[in-house]
């Protein structure tokens, strides 16, 4: 049990984990130990990562029958496979014999997997195929030991999610209002399909995963953290996250949140303005979009642009790039980053890849800034006083929009508060108080 000082845990209160999270997470502040405690991290793995729906990968990464890629759910090493009949499976990378890693490569194509230790072999749906020198087991087909499986696999618009819980909310229920944001991204592809074919970068941050998730839709920091890149690039993005901006931060429910910049883009009314390019530079793409959506439909889609949405707990779509957050320890997180690519849109794909590399690549401008902040933040929260992190920004000026969702100003911490209320729900639900 984490040590919580007397400020939050006076004697005589109900104890147990549920009561503890009630105290640590309050409407206007959250306790620093949530970011530093190994016990809380272990608890999160059980209550969140091994229970709720977690984003794993995209079907385009296993396009051919028998393709596979290595992915993860938190620290768990997961193999995402496509069998010859087209089904998608999430298998755990652990031999049923003595636990050796079955797959070493990041990706491949094979109808079956063979463990290097004693040669046990599995079909790519996880079923056991066989084992060498079978007499030691009394003959052939005597064992029924398959690879471990993530019990539930869900696919939405090609995005593959897994849940270690046998039952619970469906993927669609979990995604809820966030589905519309995924739809908005896919709608920008001329054929309505995206492809994650650009390869992944892995950025390691010495910080707690929640600092990353909270920052993804924090509209308060860009003007400060990214000031130099905005000024060098003569970018108008900074202004979208200012006090006068008509953009909103929206809590989408279930811990999801977004920065909805559409009001600003609509006001400016420039197709592809959100992407910093013009129709003339990508004529074939624009034509394909007009063919698909009609002239006025295409105009609207191209003006409104792509979503900026954090899907709880680990999928962040930042317009044209996609991040998967992988927690490894209370103070260690990997961000897997790739450029979004549209099926059959080579002009846009090249530009999206270049922008992605420039902003979040190894020498990119944006992620380097943010990572510096994550790590400074992690160092700071380990300090003993004042114990709490403040998340009250905009709490008294929040409104309910026409969909019944909570919105705040462009720079408000509405998304963070939505994150924490869902977090608290998952960490306390189903527990004896």
């Amino acid at each position, binding site marked *: 049990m984490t040590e919580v000082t007397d400020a939050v845990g006076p004697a005589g209160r109900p104890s147990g984990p549920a009561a503890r999270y009630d105290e640590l997470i309050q409407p206007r502040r959250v306790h620093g130990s949530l970011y530093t405690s190994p016990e809380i991290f272990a608890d999160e793995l059980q209550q969140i990562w091994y229970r709720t729906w977690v984003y794993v990968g995209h079907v385009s990464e296993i396009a*051919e029958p*028998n393709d596979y890629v290595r992915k993860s759910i938190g620290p768990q090493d997961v193999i995402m496979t496509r069998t010859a009949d087209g089904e998608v499976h999430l298998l755990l990378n652990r031999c049923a014999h003595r636990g050796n890693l079955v797959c070493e490569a990041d990706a491949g*194509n094979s109808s*079956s997997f063979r463990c290097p230790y004693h040669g046990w072999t599995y079909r790519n749906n996880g079923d056991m195929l066989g084992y060498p020198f079978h007499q030691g087991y009394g003959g052939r087909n005597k064992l029924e030991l398959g690879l471990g499986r993530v019990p539930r696999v869900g696919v939405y618009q090609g995005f593959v999610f897994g849940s270690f819980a046998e039952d619970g909310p469906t993927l669609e229920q979990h995604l809820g209002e966030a589905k519309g944001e995924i739809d908005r991204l896919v709608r920008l592809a001329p054929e309505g399909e995206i492809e994650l074919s650009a390869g992944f970068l892995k950025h390691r941050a010495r910080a707690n995963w929640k600092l990353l998730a909270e920052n993804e839709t924090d509209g308060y920091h860009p003007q400060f953290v990214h000031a130099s890149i905005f000024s060098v690039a003569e970018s108008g993005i900074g202004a979208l996250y200012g006090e006068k901006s008509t953009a909103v931060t929206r809590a989408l429910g279930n811990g999801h949140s977004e920065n909805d910049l559409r009001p600003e883009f609509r006001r400016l009314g420039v197709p592809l303005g959100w992407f910093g390019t013009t129709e003339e530079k990508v004529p074939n793409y624009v034509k394909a979009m007009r063919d698909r959506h009609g002239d006025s439909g295409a105009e609207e889609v191209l003006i409104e642009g792509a979503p900026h949405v954090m899907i709880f707990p680990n999928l962040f779509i930042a317009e044209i790039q996609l991040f998967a957050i992988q927690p490894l320890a209370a103070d260690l997180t990997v961000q897997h980053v790739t450029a979004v690519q549209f099926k059959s849109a080579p002009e846009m794909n090249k530009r999206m890849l270049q922008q992605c590399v420039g902003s979040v690549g190894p020498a990119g401008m944006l992620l380097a800034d943010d990572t510096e902040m994550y790590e400074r933040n992690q160092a700071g929260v380990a300090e003993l006083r004042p114990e709490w992190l403040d998340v009250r920004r905009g709490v008294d000026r929040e409104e309910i929009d026409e969909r019944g969702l909570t919105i705040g100003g462009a720079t408000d911490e509405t998304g963070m508060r939505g994150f924490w209320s869902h977090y608290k729900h998952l960490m306390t639900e189903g527990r004896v108080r």
Partner: protein
Amino acid sequence: MNISPDIVGNEFAEVSIRIDDEANSRRLRVEDLKTGRVRFLDALELETIVWLPEGNLRRLLDPSSDRWREDA
């Protein structure tokens, strides 16, 4: 006689073979040129064929074992 290098043929059957790089790792693409039917074989499957004893291969060559079956 000039036969394209990736064709293996005789008077009984003719297949074209080539390495395919479309998937997440290399595989062999084999096409039955008489019917156009295509099969991909991955490395582990190919290795298995190399080790198939003559008897097992002969069993697979029995026309009634898979392709022309009355019960299928």
